[in-house]
């Protein structure tokens, strides 16, 4: 098989696993993402930090034993801050991020189709503006890792990051168990559970 065919086949298979995990964790629900940004639902941060910690451990092994090179992006501080703020505003209003938009389309949320088309339009608008933005805002920068600043090996820093994340997650989980954040229909919507329900017997 050509490398392009391998890429597309592995992409679809990895995407199916990704989409399955996004749906099962409910993190792709607008109620979870808006809820996280309103600091009242913590499922998004839990999935996100768990995936970061897992990725860090995996890469500590793969990179530490020399199987793979790291692929970090350049540190472009002005672009990271300006772009990150605009992206964050979009995530809150979409109730999705660029990847989870596709998961929302997969489960039949109609508004996500508009998010997708808006996203394609935004990507095209950026493409036209890119030569000018590259000179005026984005510029160039080094591929800088925190372990470079600390003078450590990457794998040491990655294992330390994973350990710190495990502690943070344990503290968040103790303050707010994940089952409490699922909502009435596991979509992060608490409307029905907040109203007195006559169909359900009291829990105690």
């Amino acid at each position: 098989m050509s490398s392009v065919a391998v890429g597309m086949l592995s992409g679809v298979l990895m995407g199916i696993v990704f989409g399955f995990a996004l749906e099962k964790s409910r993190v792709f629900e607008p109620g979870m993402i808006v809820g996280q940004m309103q600091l009242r639902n913590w499922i998004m941060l839990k999935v996100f930090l768990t995936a970061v910690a897992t990725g860090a451990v995996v890469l500590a092994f793969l990179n530490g034993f020399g199987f793979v090179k790291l692929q970090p992006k350049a540190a472009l501080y002005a672009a990271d801050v300006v772009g990150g703020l605009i992206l964050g505003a979009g995530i809150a209003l979409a109730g999705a991020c660029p990847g989870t938009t596709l998961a929302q389309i997969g489960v039949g949320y109609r508004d996500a189709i508009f998010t997708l088309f808006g996203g394609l339009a935004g990507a095209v608008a950026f493409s036209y503006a890119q030569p000018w933005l590259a000179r005026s805002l984005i510029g160039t920068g080094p591929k800088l890792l925190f372990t470079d600043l600390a003078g450590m090996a990457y794998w040491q820093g990655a294992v330390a990051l994973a350990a710190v994340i495990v502690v943070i997650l344990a503290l968040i989980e103790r303050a707010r168990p994940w089952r409490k954040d699922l909502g009435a229909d596991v979509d992060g919507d608490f409307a029905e559970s907040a109203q007195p329900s006559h169909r359900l017997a009291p829990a105690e």
Partner: protein
Amino acid sequence: MSPFDKAWSPYAAGILIGLLQIPAFLLIETALGASSSYVTVGAAIAGLVDPSLLRIDYVARHVAENAKNLWQVALVIGIALGAFASMKLSGAVRAPVSPIWAKALGSSSPRLRYAVAFVAGFLMLFGARIADGCTSGHGLSGMAQLSVGSTVAVVAMFAGGIATASLLLRRI
């Protein structure tokens, strides 16, 4: 953790997503990401109308039919398929628009929601492309690699998201 469950623990799902870095790095020599695929697809379509767009270096790099670009397009298509399969296996049923939007927007008009979603998608990708990554590329992959720039981008992302959700949206 059965495929028929409606919800898994966020930790189980997070571990599964994190493990996807293994095939990404070993097979494609790249990290997980999603937002570049919008340039690959969007610019390929826009290029049919305006071929001069394809002469911009940035665009040419993204529409090149190489393994990395097409892998990411296939990845986001797979995300839709995987979410669909998971929903069907668990028997979850959804309204065409999530019920939280009527509260967050203060209106149950689908047209208002569609307009907000389009603008939101535009901002999301315009911002992600300025920052050179999204929640996946900067968030999952950049932070796992201890990238300084990605960590700055993720902090800005959450700052922008929290400010917008607090100031522009009603409490859900």
